[in-house]
């Protein structure tokens, strides 16, 4: 069989984290009752006038600048015309002729090393409503809460060659948007969606094949599977001497296969024209400069700083910066505890362990940095044992408990009380006369037994050093 190369370009839709929709003052909140976040503008009533949300332009510029794009300082909105019930105006307001950003790139990293993926353009547009099928009446029901939610569509050049590169590209975009605060990029909730354009060509031939576009990819896993299946499907066609048809295909995750969408669903003639309701946007040099000046520290810079300034390892810096949210929590905690290395150890250990154990997302972790910082200090000050600190932390992680109060209420603090220690010691010695005589006879192994017994009596609230000390003292006394 011939060798084939896969050529992939992506169209990624990212939902912007604005409070309101792109052209009206309706809330963008996810999961409201159907049609409770709608108005004449986003429900496409005749005569309603859209007015652009300034924050959408800000976010688009932030994203574009972070992805090394050129800015179209005069940009405009166009109407993309199509009839479908999810689109109440019968056109989607988008940007075709003068998109806000163009010609950028981002760098991805795979097992094969680093690679630049070029960005063709980024444009602003509005999301459509949601259609659900009603089995009972065999009709469709429409909810326009999503209609008019702001999106940016990021169109890459066909620079990717494998599913691994695609996933790396998406990961990079997601991380970048989260750091910028532009979007939370949740694939499951649809705030990040990717359409895959794929073609295959004979390796080294330089002649590109016909591409197809794959829609309805809701997870990284689905994207990987869809890429592999589509590559195989196209190669099979070519091997049989059949042509690949340029079409839009819909991925079915349950069947793990795709089918061509009917031509009616795929009417490519959108008859774009400038939207006369929306005046052009002029982006001044000052505006661009202001965005540049206020760009937050992105992951790569943060990773470097963690190594240079906080003395963390390359690996720790990489893991801690994977989620912008977790990195922010880490930094705040490190600042409060004044102990970046210990803080890093807690995050790399307990925080990540609990995230994994609960199967939650790093973005959902929400304890107060001051509580973990306090706990770290308490361990350092020997007010709580490392083992008990882990138990306390589980409560901080779950319920954002105040560690000091918790330790006090549950008697988990290290016993500073010498009398108590003595009392427990005498009790343990009296209860174990056999081992005691062995101990006094010089049997070293029994020493550990007594330490264990005392720690158990004290429920781990004593420092092992203090227990050992008291025990040694006792032995010396008895030997005299």
């Amino acid at each position, binding site marked *: 069989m011939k060798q084939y190369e896969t050529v992939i370009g992506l169209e990624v839709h990212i939902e912007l984290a604005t409070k309101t929709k792109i052209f009206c003052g309706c809330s963008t909140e996810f999961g409201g009752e159907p*049609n409770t976040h709608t108005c004449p503008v986003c429900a496409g009533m005749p005569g309603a006038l859209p007015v652009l949300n300034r924050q959408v332009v800000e976010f688009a510029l932030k994203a574009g600048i972070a992805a090394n794009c050129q800015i179209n300082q005069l940009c405009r909105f166009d109407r993309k015309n199509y009839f479908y019930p999810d689109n109440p105006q019968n056109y989607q307001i988008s940007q075709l002729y003068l998109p806000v950003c163009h010609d950028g790139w981002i760098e991805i990293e795979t097992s094969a090393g680093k690679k630049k993926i070029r960005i063709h353009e980024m444009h602003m547009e509005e999301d459509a409503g949601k259609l659900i099928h009603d089995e009972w009446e065999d009709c469709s029901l429409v909810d326009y809460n999503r209609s008019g939610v702001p999106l940016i569509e990021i169109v890459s050049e066909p620079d990717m060659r494998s599913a691994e590169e695609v996933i790396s590209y998406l990961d990079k975009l997601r991380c970048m948007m989260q750091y910028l605060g532009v979007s939370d990029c949740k694939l499951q909730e649809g705030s990040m969606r990717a359409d895959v354009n794929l073609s295959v060509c004979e390796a080294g031939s330089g002649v590109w094949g016909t591409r197809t576009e794959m829609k309805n990819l809701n997870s990284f896993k689905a994207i990987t599977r869809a890429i592999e299946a589509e590559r195989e499907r196209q190669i099979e066609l070519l091997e049989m001497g059949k042509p690949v048809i340029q079409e839009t295909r819909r991925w079915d995750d349950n069947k793990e296969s795709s089918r061509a969408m009917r031509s009616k669903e795929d009417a490519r003639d959108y008859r774009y024209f400038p939207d006369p309701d929306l*005046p052009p946007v002029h982006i001044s040099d000052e505006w661009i400069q202001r965005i540049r000046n206020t760009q937050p520290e992105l992951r790569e810079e943060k990773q470097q700083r963690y190594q240079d300034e906080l003395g963390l390892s390359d690996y720790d810096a990489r893991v801690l910066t994977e989620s912008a949210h977790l990195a922010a929590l880490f930094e705040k905690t490190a600042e409060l505890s004044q102990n970046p290395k210990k803080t890093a150890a807690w995050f790399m250990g307990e925080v990540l362990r609990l995230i994994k154990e609960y199967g939650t997302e790093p973005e959902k972790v929400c304890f107060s940095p001051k509580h973990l910082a306090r706990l770290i200090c308490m361990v350092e000050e020997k007010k709580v044992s490392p083992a008990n600190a882990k138990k306390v932390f589980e409560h901080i992680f779950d319920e954002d408990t105040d560690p000091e109060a918790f330790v006090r209420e549950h008697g988990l603090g290290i016993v500073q009380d010498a009398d108590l220690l003595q009392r427990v010691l005498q009790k343990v010695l009296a209860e174990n006369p056999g081992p005691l005589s062995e101990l006094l006879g010089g049997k070293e192994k029994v020493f550990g037994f007594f330490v264990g017994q005392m720690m158990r009596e004290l429920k781990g609230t004593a420092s092992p050093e203090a227990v050992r000390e008291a025990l040694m003292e006792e032995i010396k006394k008895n030997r005299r």
Partner: protein
Amino acid sequence: MAKIIDDETMENVCLLAKLSLEGEEREAARAEMQKMLTYVEKLDQLDTEGTEPLSHIFGSENVFREDEIVNGNQKDAMLFHAPRTKDGQYHVPKTIG
């Protein structure tokens, strides 16, 4: 001479506009569209050499709103106009896909 609206164009326009026109209706629509094209064709007589295409006539730019929620729940008023609703949603013919 304006573009002739032939059967194929008619077919495409009906598909894009989701119109099902048959017989006399279709012929009437074709004739009207042909008239419009002939009328608009007059513009071709003008010399537009060196004229920038115009998309907006008022010359205004940067008309923005701030990102503040000003609309509350107007569900009932919104759905009031719909021919048919169910469970707070617009009831429409079954869509494909």
